[in-house]
C-alpha cells in the first residue's frame, strides 16, 4: 500500500476495559499515561472516580467499565487520555485501561451486536473488536451507575 492510500485508512487505538477488548478512533486519543497521581474529592457525577493533573490541566478520570462491562473496571496503571466532544466544547478525560494498547489501521465494519454504544467493528486478524462511540458508552455507564444507586440505598 502506498503512503497516499494508507493515509486514507482510518486508525484506531485498541485497548482493554476489564477483560473486554475495544477500540476508539485514533482521532480522539491524545496520549497514554502511566501511574499518574489520582486526586479525588466529593461529587455526584456518575463514572468519575478522580482527576489527574496533566500539564497544568485538570483531567477527569472516567471509568467506561459500568457501561461496557456492567461493573467498575479493575484498578488500572495506564490511562488513555481522550478528547470528549461536549455540547459546544471539547474536553480531555482519562480512561483507565488494562494491559497493552495497540495502534492499528483498518476499515470500520457495521456493528453486529446489540450494544448501542458500539459504532462499528474492526477485524483484527480474525478477531472482531468493537469500536466505541465514546459519548454513548459514557451515557450507558452513567445510566447503569445511576440505576445501581437506588438499589444500594434500598439495601442499606
Amino acid at each position, binding site marked *: 500500500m502506498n503512503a497516499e492510500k494508507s493515509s486514507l485508512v482510518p486508525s484506531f487505538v485498541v485497548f482493554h476495559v476489564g477483560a473486554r477488548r475495544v477500540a476508539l478512533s485514533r482521532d480522539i486519543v491524545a496520549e497514554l499515561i502511566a501511574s499518574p*497521581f489520582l*486526586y*479525588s*474529592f*466529593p*461529587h*455526584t*457525577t456518575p463514572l*468519575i472516580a478522580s*482527576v489527574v*493533573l496533566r*500539564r*497544568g*490541566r*485538570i*483531567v*477527569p478520570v*472516567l471509568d467506561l467499565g459500568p457501561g461496557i462491562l456492567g461493573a467498575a473496571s479493575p484498578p488500572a496503571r495506564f490511562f488513555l487520555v481522550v478528547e*470528549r466532544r*461536549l455540547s459546544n*466544547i471539547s*474536553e480531555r*478525560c482519562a480512561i483507565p485501561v488494562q494491559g497493552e494498547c495497540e495502534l492499528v489501521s483498518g476499515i470500520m465494519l457495521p456493528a453486529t451486536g446489540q450494544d448501542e454504544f458500539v459504532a462499528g467493528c474492526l477485524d483484527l486478524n480474525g478477531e472482531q473488536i468493537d469500536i466505541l462511540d465514546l459519548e454513548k458508552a459514557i451515557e450507558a455507564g452513567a445510566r447503569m451507575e445511576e440505576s445501581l444507586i437506588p438499589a444500594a440505598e434500598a439495601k442499606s
Partner: protein
Amino acid sequence: MTQTVNSSLSRRDARRREQVAVFSIAEYSFVISAASIQEIRNTDSLGGTVVDLDRPVLRKVRHIVERDARSYYVVSGYEHFHLPPSRPTTVLILRDAPVAVLVDRIEEMAEMRVLLALPQSFRGEERTWYRGLTVLDRKVLPVANPLGFLTTRELQQIEEQNPGLLESASMRKERERV
C-alpha cells in the same frame, strides 16, 4: 479575587493570589476563601447560642446559631457533601450568607495562586458546591463556594417552614444585649 481559568494553569494566571483556609471533612480537604469567613470557632464554644429548628426540612440543617446579634443556619459539612458521618470540631461562620458550616478541622491558612474551572464532565451538585479546583502543595483541592452551602432555594425552603425564626433569634439576642 482569583479568576477562574479554563481548567489549565498559565503563567499569567499564576500571578493572581487569594488567601484561603484549608479545612477537612472526613478524609477530604477543601479550600475556602478567607475573605468569605467571618469567624472560625470551636464547636464547644457555641453551646448556649444554638437553637433547634422547629421544622428541619433539610437533613444538613437542624440548628441555628446566634453570634453578635446575627443568626446563622448551621450546615453539617459531611451531610452537605454526602460524606459518611464525621466528628466536626470547628465551625466556619460565613460573612455573606446566613450560614455556619461544621467542619472537622482547619488544616492551614494558605495562598491560592490559581483557580481552575471544574471540568464540564462534572455535572452534578458539585457545580454548586465548588467555585473550581486549585493546586496546593501539589495536591488538587476543590474550592468551596460559600454561597453553595445553602442555595437561595434551600434558604427559601427553610424560611417557609420556620417563618421568622432567623429574625426572631437575632432580635432576642439584641434585646438581651440592651
